[in-house]
């Protein structure tokens, strides 16, 4: 067993897991954070995207032990009790998701983009979402929502960074 201590959505958390455990399984099975989805489990679909030290990462491709000592933000770290994160709100307002399975990953990729580049071009948004497959929407309304968030200048800092 390997011990992993990480900052997860602002809180320091520790777990003891078999060394082959992926970060995704650590999040879902040890910490009960099932917002990050297990889609392909080989890094093709992006449904498991989380932010590690400010970068979007396929959590199915990262071992839990590699996250030791690092800062991890998942979809659960975005909303507060009183309000949604602007990306979540705009995705809702614009009907950006349909079945929703890709949603947590898409939103985390978008958040990582906006944290680094608050005013991205449409092409930069398309590049940032290229690792997140969506079967329902054609991406159009996701791109519109991300543009709207960028326009409003409301890309909030992550909870862990507050």
């Amino acid at each position, binding site marked *: 067993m390997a011990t992993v201590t990480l900052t997860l959505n602002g809180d320091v958390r520790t777990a003891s897991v078999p060394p082959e455990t992926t970060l995704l399984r650590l999040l879902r099975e040890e910490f009960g954070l099932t917002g990050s989805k297990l889609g392909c489990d080989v890094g093709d679909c992006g449904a498991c995207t989380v932010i590690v030290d400010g970068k979007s990462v396929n959590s199915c491709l990262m071992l839990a032990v590699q996250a030791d000592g690092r800062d991890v933000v998942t979809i659960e770290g975005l909303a507060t009790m009183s309000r949604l994160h602007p990306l979540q709100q705009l995705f809702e307002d614009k009907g950006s998701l*349909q*079945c929703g399975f890709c949603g947590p990953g898409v939103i985390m990729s978008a958040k990582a983009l906006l944290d680094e580049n608050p005013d991205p071009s449409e092409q930069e948004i398309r*590049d940032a979402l290229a690792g997140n497959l*969506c079967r329902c929407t054609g991406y*159009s309304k996701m791109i519109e929502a991300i543009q709207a968030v960028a326009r409003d200048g409301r890309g909030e800092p992550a909870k862990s960074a507050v």
Partner: protein
Amino acid sequence: MKRRGRGIACMWYPIGFTVSANPSAAVVKVNEDGTATLLTGTVETGQGSLTILAQIVAEELGIATDDVHVVSADTDTTPMDTGAIASRTTYVTGNAARLAAEKAKKILFEVAAPLLGVKPEHLEVGDHKIRIKGFPQRSLHIGDVAERARGVNGDPPIGSASFNPATAALDAETGQGKPFATYVYATQIAEVEVDDETGEVEVLRIAASHDCGTPINPMLVEGQVEGGISMGVGFALEEEILFDATGRQINPNLTNYIMPTSLDMPKVEVDIVDSYDPTGPFGAKGVGEPTCVPTAAAILNAIHDAVGVRVTSLPATAEKVYAALKAKRAQEGKRLGAGA
């Protein structure tokens, strides 16, 4: 060299099959607080059909969409539904929901009419009220009427209804008949760029004009069209299930089964043609599957417009387009040689 071309494709698509029984049923109860509850067997898969059904019930009862609580797809409590298939939910289930709400409304009108001193046929709903047509200031709150219907008249405002597009068998000899209740129509135009040295195709833009009857929720209609087009782009250029000689799929994963990413998707312009079908709920028909019908044809026509080759099997991969270009050049070379 990259060459641009445009292609157009049109389609019609049937809504509400009639060759076999195709029913949906619904129960609507109006609650004493002025909200309503809809029981429906249909399944929400992200297309927004439960929102549409809530809008239909709200419109029929004159209340807000948020005031309609939808209970769906629970065999313990909801009526069986033929399915979230065949682009039928708005049309078939929507009609059932509207009819159920209308029945509940009739009970409310019977209760409200004597209180307002008119006949039930002189009443209408709107703004959470039951009111006299032409005299909207003479009204009762729908919740108060629902309370009275239950507590005084002993007739709780509950309606149940089903809708089945009239089943009509096809003629066994000619195959002729009326296989569907109604039809939708669409045209899509694709603009592509084809690299005539590699056969690679990039879709730059798609304009899509769709008739779906009354668009009950235009934002959801746009979402369906944009999503359908992404499936059409995959169908046209990328997606293919490959088998080996023993029939085993050799690309059962998203590494080798290629589908459109955000980088493959063109700009999509959606135009909703506002129309009205008298047999649909508030004039609505449907929009789901039709959205991906004309896309591949428009893209392949655009490839022809750009480089003059017809690819006749999907997907039109770079290899196929390149092979067609090579064959065309060989043909032209031969013709040139024959003429000289």
